[in-house]
């Protein structure tokens, strides 16, 4: 189907089902129940899942496939956001032109940075991208204030021209982002017994884009171009000896991943029309690195999983405070309750970064293939137990890791 083999089609269908049914899957607990705080099925968070999923898919094309560790990818995200907001300010509140512009601008920016940075590889490449990203951050923060509005961040206002749209709604409020009239923040609640499921237009728009981006990524992974990128990752010197120039391929991969990042930035602005310089800081680039590694660099689905997981933790774990913990451990005797709370407390709430850091370290140390490899290992374990007699082991051993 769609030029994919059976395995990839299945993968795409899984992603399709996951994204389309996300409002149900992420809302497993009834609204009023004590577990409702683990529900992630509200539009804001679901949008973040898919947007960072797109960002991570793009980053994976550069890092997972080509092996270049960029520490400056947030710059493209930021550039995408800024260009989308400018489109909202100048043209109209329709999100299509904004997103298209953000992809193009991010692509051009990536072409420029990539052209220079890719003269070096390894750690030097990482530091070059880091330096460029920090430079863009500093510039966006200070000198480029006419374009970026400095530390306040770029917002849409009532006085913007908006050539193809209205500057203000009839009731005097700022118009909202829309897709040919369909407002992005429009949402519809469905109540089934004690559950409430929210379907939001913005989320489904992002989800469709994610599906397209994922499909494109599969095609890139399976194309001769993807093979070339893999070859560059495994041994660049050997490639040089066979007479192939890796430069155009790495540059193309860099630009493609930059465009993905720009797309994510544009979507971010489309869902919430503002852009700030913090989005470009190097710690923000670190975040996408964490996502990709956590999920599994070089795998198709890994980055999406990693992005989802980090964003879930960020939003759910950080909501847990001491009171909630006391509620959980209330069944224990008093002394033990306080003890358990004091043990768990550093890892949740404001301290969720600690959990993230530890998790990330454990993955890098023990599971270089990320969560996907973890899942495969568990799967293999069960398969081996299930069918010891038939040649299941041989089959499992044949499986390529990280696909």
């Amino acid at each position, binding site marked *: 189907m769609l030029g994919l083999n059976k395995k990839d089609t299945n993968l795409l269908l899984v992603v399709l089902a996951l994204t389309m049914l996300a409002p149900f899957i992420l809302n497993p607990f009834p609204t009023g129940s004590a577990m409702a705080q683990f529900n992630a099925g509200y539009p804001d968070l679901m949008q973040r899942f898919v947007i960072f999923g797109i960002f991570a898919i793009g980053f994976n094309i550069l890092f997972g496939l080509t092996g270049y*560790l960029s520490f400056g990818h947030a710059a493209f995200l930021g550039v995408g956001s800024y260009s989308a907001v400018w489109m909202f300010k100048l043209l109209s509140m329709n999100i299509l032109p904004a997103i298209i512009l953000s992809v193009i601008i991010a692509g051009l920016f990536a072409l420029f940075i990539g052209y220079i940075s890719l003269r070096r590889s390894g*750690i030097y490449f990482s530091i070059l991208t880091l330096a460029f990203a920090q*430079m863009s951050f500093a*510039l966006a923060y200070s000198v480029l204030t006419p374009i970026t509005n400095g530390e306040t961040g770029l917002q849409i206002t009532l006085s913007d021209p908006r050539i193809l749209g209205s500057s203000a709604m009839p009731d005097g409020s700022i118009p909202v982002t829309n897709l040919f009239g369909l407002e992005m923040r429009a949402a519809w609640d469905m109540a089934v017994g004690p559950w409430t499921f929210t379907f939001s237009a913005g989320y489904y728009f992002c989800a469709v884009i994610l599906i397209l981006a994922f499909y494109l990524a599969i095609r890139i992974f399976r194309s001769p171009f993807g093979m070339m990128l893999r070859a560059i990752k495994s041994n660049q010197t050997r490639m040089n000896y066979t007479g192939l120039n890796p430069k155009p391929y790495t540059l193309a991969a860099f630009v493609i991943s930059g465009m993905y990042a720009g797309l994510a930035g544009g979507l971010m602005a489309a869902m919430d029309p503002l852009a700030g310089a913090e989005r470009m800081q190097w710690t923000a680039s670190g975040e996408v*690195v964490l996502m990709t590694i956590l999920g599994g660099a070089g795998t198709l689905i890994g980055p999406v999983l990693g992005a989802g997981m980090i964003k879930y933790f960020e939003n759910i774990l950080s909501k847990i405070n001491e009171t909630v913990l006391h509620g959980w451990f209330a069944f224990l005797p008093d002394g033990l309750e306080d003890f358990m709370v004091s043990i768990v407390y550093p890892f949740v709430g404001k*301290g969720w970064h600690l959990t993230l*850091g530890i998790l990330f*370290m454990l993955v890098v140390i023990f599971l270089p293939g990320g969560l996907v490899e973890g899942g495969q290992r568990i799967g293999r374990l069960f398969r081996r137990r299930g069918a010891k007699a038939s040649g299941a082991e041989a089959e499992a051993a044949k499986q390529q890791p990280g696909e």
Partner: protein
Amino acid sequence: MDAILLQILNGLDKGSAYALIALGLTLIFGTLGVVNFAHGALFMIGAFCAVTIQRLLNLSHEVIDETQTDFLGNPLKVKVPYLQDWFGESMGSALQDWSVPLAILFAIPVMLVVGYVMERGLIKHFYKRPHADQILVTFGLAIVLQEIVKFYYGANPIQTPAPEALSGVAQVLPGVVYPVWRIVYFCFAAAIIAGVFAFLQFTTFGMVVRAGMADRETVGLLGIDIDKRFTFMFGLAAAVAGLAGVMYGPINAPNYHMGMDFLVLSFVVVVVGGMGSLPGAVLAGFLLGILESFASTTWATTTLPGINQIIIYLVAIIILLTRPRGLMGRKGVMED
């Protein structure tokens, strides 16, 4: 002329911090071949050693002071540090006042142990893995260390004042006044750098380490346990970063993300100086510090707005593109 001298002085203390951190980074890179993204966190831990010592010295108990009364006539409770009970009033308050320099004594063993544990517990397993993995795992470690510090000390900056005697300004030249502590910091950095170089140059231990940096295998074949020495060098590098942090406290109040703030810059310094080159790191550290301070002058920022914020990165990009081995780097180190 005075203005130029002042800018150079301004650059020296920032440059001292860069140089010390970059020296440690290069030491680790040159000996173990590990790219340590947790080095900024070590700098931060050093600064928080000073915070800890300051808090320990200020531990106090409440005493009812009959001489002071509140508006109802009841005697007030005042806090008296234990130090003043033990050593007498003047000696006790002097000890409290000198908490930052005293913290050095505390920080050296702490940092050596932290470095040792880090190397044996984690870095050891990453020698054979690609540089990307080393960057990633140390980046994760940096996050963890930073969050632990944030949990115990909070997110706000904590003041660690310099001793009274060293906190004023001094007349460097006629017409040029300059904060004393910054001069102290520079002298301290110079002493540490000289100490590290002397240690490597004039001791047998240092000689073996240098030999190991040049050719690890051959030194191993001579029957020398080079790994043990390299582990110690890691601890030493951690101590250098930590001491840089201890003394940096009075210049900028320690906060939990100071490590990450300095990390990127110190990597840039290392790259400009040349990966694995100790003199290069020191030279580049001071050079970039001074360059940054010149770029921050009103003249520079009015001619080229924003230059003060990007100058270091700009220099790094130019150096990386034209001379990837850096100012004093050996040829072929990580050039591929």
